[in-house]
């Protein structure tokens, strides 16, 4: 069922129960203002919610009751029994409708006009107003000084006889006469005509049934037996009953009688009272006495049936008159499904459970140290129960984030109408669970942000079409877990945040000076929207723009320990990211040791444990100063916990001859190993936040008390990764950082890790490490010679080996170091004499060498080193690898210029980068056209673009067309680079917008072409 409706049902059910009780109280103490206020408030709430949910029937009934209550409250009406009864009746009607709602999720059909009119009548002061239906047969006028009949609980209607009198009449009436012997005054029917005809036919029956239904409803002593049956239903039942009775159809009469009453306890006396009422009504309707008597007598036929059926009904339903059986039944079902518990209680429970978990751990620790204790079995059981208890208590607090989103589609819908926009709201990860308290707290900020996106972000359809976007804007909500945090993203594809407009505003408000602004990045300027008192909407709409928005959002999120971040690209849209930590939570933690101190690492980020020693398969190796571990054909960067925490220096650590335990952890997409001294077991730990003074220490995410009572710190793998990388790895999604680091990265990308090796000759040789797929030691005896070529069986294939230098002599036996290069399906091994080191140096290749197989030479680690040209060797190994042209005349390097290189092949990218660097260009490489276009949108500018043609997703031609179609790079020269270099291809390339077309790895032509293009560009400018 719809959550909203469900919530409403529970809540309204509760309110009604309270009103029931309170009303009775009020009746006893009509002057109790407090009770009255309470009732009024509850009914008002019910009315309000009904209106909100679009339940007109409920709303109108509640509204009418509220009116009456309002009069009571204002002192315009005295509280009297009759009014209370009618209000109670309306409550019952509400319950009835609620029951229908619960069963079908729709308001049941029905007519409440008479109830409402009675309520209205009371509100207007006509306490005894006749119902419209009754008015058909009776005088509607009400006279002053009316008599209240105690039996009926209301004033008598004109022409009506009080029950006492009827009783008296009944008593005095002689036994029923078989035939209508006496003269009938009004009925046209003869003595021998059937009872039905004598009573006046169907019309009379209908009227009688109607009146009966009405009066039964008002008669307190009888109405309870018909609880759960609406007046309308009752009327139908009586009509059916009378028709069958008066037509001597005893079978159907019996059948109807079985269903007549809905509550138990209908005694003989009650049935007699019912008969009296029937008779009175008959008389009222103008049926002559004898016929009325006879008709009444016919009811005796079903006396036993009705009383019997009443007995059959479970006595539990014998509630006070106001309880209707069906409503009561479903209500209990509802309450058994969910109850409301105060959050404080849950909070307390959670704390208790946390303590219980800690104590359990303590016990476990003690028992672990005792040998064969009889405690262990019960303790195990206790442990299990505790775990389950803990899980369940946690669950009580967790709610899917979708709950906080439930109202958003409606809000967005309303906004689209109000703002005349077309917006599509997408919600992803709605079942991501988070603590309900946190959920409550982010509800409002979220709503606010979605409103903002709809109002400020998404443009009007016309504007969108004009800027080439689909008419309908999209707002995407996305939620997911990441490393103990919940990340929520609100994305829109709207206009983004205009930096120029924002700057004006900032200046106008004096939040920053022009000089300050000039130094800020776009993103920093955009962050001003979080500044107190800021709004960019040109005009204030009813939706947003009062300038308290994002500031409040940020404060609210920070209050719960979260962070908010945003990234916006003008014309493309904005992304807001909210990160909320799970502060109070029990998590599994791996306990490790470093320098005698224990630490916990959240199990969730631990991928595996590896034990490394000098002699085992896993051994920590070093690439210069960087410790790495070979793990299943991957190099795993390592971090020494001792070093991170400042216990020991690297030299000391590496000098140690001990086994190392490596905890492989994953943070986002980054996997690395933490080297620790010892690994203990996993324990359930309650994460407690660290003291405020330690907040700045990013290596800890909290602390906890272990089973043995000692306090230990919980390490934050994210923080350690950051320290290990000093910001080099994008562990966090922080776009701000990314932006700010962008320029730094440009620089650091110039730094190439170079693998330095020795291969003949005096000078060491080097190759960009990125090009090397693997380092292998190959048994010399495995090397085979075929057709003048060296081969080795490698991973089930024959891999050609090429000597890095003709002078290299293969050693007789033992192992030969080999660098393995891979490009697509080609794999080759480069035989070298010795692998020396890996250095991280900025690649300043001194001069382009003309020597075959050498790209140039560079000073690496203080020594002149030849940088080899891998393509040369690849050509040697594979004839079908791209035919490289002779590298005769080195192209004169053209100094300066920034070049963007787009190629999906890692190999080519890494290959060309040094080539271009040698030629004096600053090079930026990306692997896909999409990434390139991303750079364009981020505002990067290049003097020239070199693009591959054969690329997945978007090929070079498409890329060129895209670039030429507009944007910042519209006029940037482009060079196509492809192994498909036929006449046709070249033409196609030019048509697509490439300025030149160069065959892949025609180094000189490429360089020449670059200088040519840059020159043309320069001349044009």
């Amino acid at each position, binding site marked *: 069922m719809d959550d909203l409706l469900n919530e409403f049902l529970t809540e309204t059910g509760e309110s009604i129960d309270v009103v029931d009780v309170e009303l009775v109280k009020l009746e006893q103490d009509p002057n109790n203002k407090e009770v009255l206020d309470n009732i009024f408030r509850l009914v008002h709430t019910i009315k309000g919610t009904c209106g909100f949910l679009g339940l007109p029937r409920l709303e109108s009934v509640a509204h009418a009751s509220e009116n009456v209550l309002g009069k009571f409250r204002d002192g315009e009406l005295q509280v009297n029994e009759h009014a209370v009864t009618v209000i109670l009746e309306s409550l019952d009607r509400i319950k009835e409708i609620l029951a229908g709602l619960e069963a079908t999720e729709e308001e049941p059909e029905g007519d409440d006009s008479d109830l409402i009119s009675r309520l209205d009548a009371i509100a207007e002061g006509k306490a005894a107003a006749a119902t419209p239906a009754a008015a058909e047969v009776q005088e509607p006028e009400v006279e002053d000084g009316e008599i209240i009949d105690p039996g009926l609980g209301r004033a008598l209607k004109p022409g009506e006889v009080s029950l006492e009198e009827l009783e008296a009449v009944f008593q005095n009436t002689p036994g029923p006469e078989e035939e209508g012997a006496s003269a009938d005054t009004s009925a046209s029917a003869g003595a021998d005509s059937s009872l039905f005809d004598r009573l006046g036919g169907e019309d009379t029956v209908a009227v009688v049934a109607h009146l009966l239904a009405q009066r039964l409803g008002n008669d307190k002593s009888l109405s309870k037996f018909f609880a759960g049956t609406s007046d309308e239903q009752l009327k139908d039942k009586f009509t059916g009953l009378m028709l069958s009775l008066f037509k001597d159809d005893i079978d159907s009469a019996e059948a109807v009688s079985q269903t007549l009453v809905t509550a138990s306890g209908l005694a003989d006396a009650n049935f007699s009272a019912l008969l009296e009422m029937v008779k009175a009504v008959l008389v009222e309707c103008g049926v002559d006495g004898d016929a009325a008597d006879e008709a009444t007598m016919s009811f005796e036929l079903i006396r036993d049936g009705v009383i019997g059926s009443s007995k059959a009904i479970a006595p539990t339903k014998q509630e006070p008159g106001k309880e209707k059986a069906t409503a009561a039944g479903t209500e209990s079902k509802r309450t058994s499904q969910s109850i409301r518990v105060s959050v404080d209680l849950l909070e307390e429970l959670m704390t208790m459970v946390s*303590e219980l978990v*800690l104590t359990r751990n303590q016990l476990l620790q003690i028992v672990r140290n005792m040998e064969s204790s009889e405690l262990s079995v019960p303790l195990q059981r206790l442990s299990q129960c505790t775990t389950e208890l803990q899980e369940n208590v946690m669950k009580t607090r967790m709610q899917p984030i979708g709950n906080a989103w439930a109202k958003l589609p409606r809000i967005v819908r309303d906004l689209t109408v109000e703002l005349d926009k077309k917006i599509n709201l997408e919600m992803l990860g709605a079942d991501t669970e988070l603590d309900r308290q946190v959920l409550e707290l982010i509800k409002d900020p979220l709503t606010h942000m979605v409103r903002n996106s709809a109002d400020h972000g998404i443009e009007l359809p016309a504007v969108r079409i004009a800027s080439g976007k689909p008419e309908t804007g999209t707002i995407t909500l996305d939620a997911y877990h990441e490393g103990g945090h919940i990340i929520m993203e609100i994305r829109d594809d709207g206009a983004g945040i205009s930096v120029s407009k924002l700057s004006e505003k900032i200046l106008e408000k004096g939040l920053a000076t022009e000089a300050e602004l000039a130094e800020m990045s776009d993103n920093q300027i955009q962050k001003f929207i979080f500044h107190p008192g800021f709004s960019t909407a040109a005009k204030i709409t009813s939706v947003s723009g009062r300038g308290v928005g994002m500031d409040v959002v940020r404060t609210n999120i920070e209050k719960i320990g979260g962070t908010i971040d945003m990234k916006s690209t003008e014309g493309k849209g904005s992304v807001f990211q909210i990160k909320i930590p799970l502060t109070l939570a029990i998590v599994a933690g791996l306990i490790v040791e470093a320098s005698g*101190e224990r630490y916990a690492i959240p199990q969730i980020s631990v991928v595996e444990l590896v034990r490394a020693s000098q002699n085992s398969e896993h051994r920590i190796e070093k690439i210069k100063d960087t410790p790495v571990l070979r793990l299943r054909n991957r190099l795993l960067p390592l971090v020494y916990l001792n070093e991170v*925490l*400042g*216990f020991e220096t690297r030299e000391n650590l590496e000098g140690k001859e001990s086994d190392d335990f490596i905890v492989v952890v994953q943070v986002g997409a980054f996997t690395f190993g933490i080297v620790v001294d010892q690994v203990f077991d996993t324990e359930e730990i309650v994460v*407690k936040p660290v*003291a*405020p*003074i*330690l907040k700045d*220490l990013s*290596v*800890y995410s909290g*602390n*906890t*008390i272990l089973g043995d*009572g*000692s*306090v*230990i*710190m919980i390490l934050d793998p994210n923080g350690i990764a950051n320290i290990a990388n000093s910001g080099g790895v994008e562990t966090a999604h922080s776009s701000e950082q990314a932006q700010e680091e962008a320029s730094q990265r440009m620089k650091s990308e110039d730094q190439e890790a170079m693998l330095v090796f020795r291969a003949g000759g005096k000078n060491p040789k080097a190759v960009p490490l990125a090009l090397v797929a693997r380092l292998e030691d190959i048994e010399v005896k495995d090397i085979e010679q075929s057709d003048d070529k060296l081969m080795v069986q490698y991973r089930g294939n024959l891999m050609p080996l090429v000597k890095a230098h003709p002078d290299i002599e293969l050693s007789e036996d033992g192992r030969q170091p080999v660098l393995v290069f891979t490009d697509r399906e080609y794999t080759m091994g480069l035989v070298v004499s010795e692998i020396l080191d890996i250095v991280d140096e900025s690649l300043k290749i001194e001069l382009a060498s003309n020597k075959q197989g050498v790209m140039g030479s560079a000073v690496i680690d203080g020594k002149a080193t030849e940088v080899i040209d891998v393509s040369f060797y690849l050509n040697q190994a594979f004839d079908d690898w791209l035919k490289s042209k002779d590298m005769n005349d080195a192209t004169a390097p053209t100094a300066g210029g920034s070049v963007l290189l787009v190629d999906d092949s890692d190999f080519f990218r890494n290959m060309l980068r040094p080539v271009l660097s040698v030629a004096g260009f600053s090079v930026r490489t990306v692997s896909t056209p999409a990434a390139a276009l991303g750079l364009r949108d981020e505002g990067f500018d290049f003097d020239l673009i070199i693009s591959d043609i054969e690329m997945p997703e978007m090929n070079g031609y498409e890329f060129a067309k895209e670039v030429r179609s507009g944007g910042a790079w519209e006029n940037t020269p482009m060079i196509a680079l492809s192994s498909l270099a036929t006449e046709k291809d070249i033409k196609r390339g030019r048509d697509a917008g490439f300025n030149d077309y160069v065959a892949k790895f025609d180094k000189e032509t490429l360089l020449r072409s670059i200088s040519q293009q840059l020159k043309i560009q320069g001349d044009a400018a």
Partner: protein
Amino acid sequence: MNDLVVKQNSSLVAVEEAQEVVTVNLAGQVLGIPVLEVHDVLNAQQITKIPLSPEWVSGVLNLRGRIVTAIDLRARLGLPPREDGEKSMSVVVEYNDEPYSLQIDSVGEVLRLDGSMFERNPVTLEQRWRNVSTGIYRLEKQLLPILDVEKLLDFEGAAKAA
């Protein structure tokens, strides 16, 4: 109390009412901590060190299920570090609902001090002391600086000032 108020009014230096303080010894110096601020007095505890934390944070300890941050008062006040083997005690105070345990050498006595003996910090007092002391009581035999727990533990503020 009435006569005290009169006395206070007549005295220009005294602004504080009479208060009770716990005296603690720290590297030969006696300090006072308002008794109402003291939650616990503990003997030496097992303290878990926190690498990378400021030098005056000696670690965290478990006080009946609560994690308490231990502050090395000597380091905080610029006194020479405790020698190995020297005993220590701690006084647990709270600041912003966070418990802190102040590491001291030993606890002295509880004194009820009259406001008339109170005096503001002399201007010549070392800055570090002046920052963490509300004032000084002139006792017969010695002077008793009173620790201002709030200022002592207001690290964020201190960091900003620095």
